[in-house]
């Protein structure tokens, strides 16, 4: 790196225009500019705002937790030399062919339809390169996706778009979806722009219509019926495939317990920050609980049933770094799933498309109108020209790189905590920076033994 002294001969830039504060203007905290825009948009269009990207509001998250690295009382492992295992087996409770992954970072369910075929292929390539799984979404399994995915989880959703027994038998695991973090209790939505001939064909829908997906499964409700449904899926696939149950985090203690009682091999828990697909903003921002608050509740349910580590817990919703991976696992997850982060790794919201985001009335880092199908990065679109911008081979490499970094980062932390396997991280390796996160994650506030809300601790 070369340092250059500043050149004082250049003209001093003109003074910026006076700030709003200097003009004596004060923005309302209640009616801020985004709120004003929302009200105006509602009044103009008569329909709620629909968007992707999960909750944007600030909620207590993994950033509010810190690890207690080893020093004197505990011994760290030597990085790069002493092994820190990352493998995970998912679904050994009942399935004769459980999934054996090399890293606990998996790719969450995102549909072909919501995403382009190239994006789906890239996710499959990237996941396969590092020995992890990828997941279909609402709309069926594409040959590209199956072909490029070593481990493919087939989602079983209320709409059953594209659901067929041949693909069920081709899948490596089946994920019965009850809900998503962005919208626990809500159905799906895919606007007409994305219902192209191929998407419409796969979903048995007219081309170009707004597709609405049901919020409840058509042929079962509640855990007593779910148990019978899971048994049917097992019978159809001769008890080979692991069966996951995915829930949106709202009452995860009860929902996890009921998923276990219904016979799930794996519970997938999606916090409110999760969700790439489009849904009502009012839903995304106001329904569900943060990932951080959800994990300890689910783990408690598993522990009380004697099923922790026997029924695996996959956590999603706001996983971005290896630290997040390690923190989720320390709180009791067996694996994590990434959605939004994977799309960003593929090139979503990349500043190179700044001019095009501007044309769409957005900006790099803010673009969330995945439902419109006009994604400049060629990911959340069915437009052939835009899709072609994403090279599935290069995209796959980016995904693989990113997954490797997440894994290595998690290992770095685990070694520092003296663990020879990621699964040996535990809540006692963590402290919290804020009272809120301490209460939610059920770990002590840093430097104290205080876990707010817990009985029998405190000063």
């Amino acid at each position, binding site marked *: 790196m070369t340092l250059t002294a500043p050149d004082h001969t250049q003209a001093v830039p003109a003074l910026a225009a006076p700030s709003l504060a200097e003009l004596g203007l004060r923005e309302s905290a209640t009616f801020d500019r985004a709120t004003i825009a929302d009200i105006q948009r509602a009044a103009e269009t008569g329909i709620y705002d629909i968007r992707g990207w999960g909750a944007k509001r600030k909620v207590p998250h993994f950033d509010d937790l810190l690890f207690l690295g080893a020093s004197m009382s505990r011994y760290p492992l030597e990085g790069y030399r002493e092994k820190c295992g990352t493998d995970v087996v998912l679904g050994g409770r009942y399935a004769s062919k459980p999934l054996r992954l090399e890293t606990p970072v998996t790719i969450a369910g995102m549909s072909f339809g919501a995403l382009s075929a190239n994006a789906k292929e890239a996710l499959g390539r990237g996941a396969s390169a590092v020995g992890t799984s990828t997941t279909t979404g609402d709309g069926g399994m594409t040959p590209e996706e199956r072909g490029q995915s070593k481990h493919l989880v087939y989602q079983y959703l209320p709409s059953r778009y594209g659901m067929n027994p041949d693909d069920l038998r081709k899948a490596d695991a089946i994920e019965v979806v009850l809900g998503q973090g962005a919208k626990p209790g809500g159905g799906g939505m895919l606007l007409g722009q994305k219902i192209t001939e191929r998407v419409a064909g796969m979903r048995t829908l007219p081309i170009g219509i707004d597709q609405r997906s049901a919020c409840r499964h058509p042929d079962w409700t*509640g855990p007593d019926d779910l*148990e019978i449904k899971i048994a049917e899926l097992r019978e159809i696939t001769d008890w080979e495939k692991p069966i996951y149950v995915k829930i949106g985090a709202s009452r995860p203690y009860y929902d996890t317990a009921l998923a276990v009682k219904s016979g799930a091999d794996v519970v997938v828990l999606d916090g409110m920050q999760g969700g790439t697909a489009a849904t009502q903003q009012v839903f995304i921002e106001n329904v569900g609980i943060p990932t951080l608050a959800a994990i300890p509740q689910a783990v408690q349910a598993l522990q009380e049933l004697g099923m922790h580590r026997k029924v695996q817990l996959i956590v999603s919703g706001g996983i971005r770094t290896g630290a997040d991976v390690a923190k989720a696992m320390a709180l009791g997850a067996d694996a994590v799933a990434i959605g939004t982060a994977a799309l960003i790794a593929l090139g979503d919201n990349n500043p190179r498309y700044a001019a095009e985001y501007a044309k769409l009335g957005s900006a790099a880092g803010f673009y969330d109108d995945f439902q419109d199908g006009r994604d400049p990065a060629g990911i959340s679109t069915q437009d052939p020209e835009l899709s072609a911008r994403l090279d599935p081979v290069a995209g796959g490499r980016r995904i693989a790189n990113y997954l490797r970094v997440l894994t290595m980062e998690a290992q770095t932390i685990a070694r520092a905590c003296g663990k020879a396997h990621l699964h040996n991280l535990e809540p006692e390796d963590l402290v919290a920076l804020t009272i809120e996160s301490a209460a939610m994650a059920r770990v002590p506030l840093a430097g104290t033994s205080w876990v707010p809300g817990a009985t029998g601790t405190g000063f």
Partner: protein
Amino acid sequence: MCGIAALQLRNPQLRPKMGSLLSTMLCEIVDRGPDSAGLAVYDNPELNTLGKSTLSLLGADLEISSADIDALLAELLPEGATSEVRIVGDTTLVSAEVATEDLAGAVARAYPEAVVAGRGERVTVMKSVGHPVEVAERHGLEGMYGSQAVSHTRMATESAVTAGGSHPFSVANDLCLVHNGSFSNHASVRRELKRLGVEFDSENDTEVGARYVAHRLQQGDDLETALVNLGKVLDGFYTLVVTTADSMAVVRDPIACKPAIIAETDDWVAMASEFRALAELPGIENARIFEPEPGRVYTWSL
């Protein structure tokens, strides 16, 4: 979330077989709720006597002494009469020739921890945690006589797996209610009932339904009207079976997702969550079999 099997025997000749018929039905709904179970049996002469109140208390180890209760009932018991304490499986029965409220009051004062699971002159309620078939065996269901009976297997949703949280909920004389589904506004209805002076034993949503029905009956509704009113107040998903001293009712919410199937012959009427629970009933091959329509109250009297 649960399994329900209920049977009303119109033909008295079948009543000695009540226990064995209900056991068969219960075995088939175990998968729907293996956490815990409850049974209610009407008009069993070994358990209930007309003219005598009987309380069904949770647990067999309450160590209740008849003398303690007699002391509190001294003024009320007929000349020379005493209360009677019996253990049936995991249930303690306390009977006396006094009004049920007086007997319940005496038990509550002498044994404040005791939880009343059933009350009345004609019904005994037996509830316990554990595998439903074992619960039934411990109580000797197989050999029981009865005119009506209800069994319930529970997969607890949002409240604890306890005997108290099991169904049926029997909160008024000879009234029992079982539920499959989940009420979505039970907390508000509970608050309103509490404001009206109704007391609760558990956090269970079904208890709210039972207390609501008991409250409406007390206000003068007949069973059918009480259930129509329940549909106006309680939101969510439900299939309910309610039994009284001489009748049985079935109702489902207007969306009607939770399963229910009814079979009826001249000799009996049965309701279950699934057909397989009805498969072995005598004369099932010629029974009228149908699913209750959404939002409609069905009642049958003995």
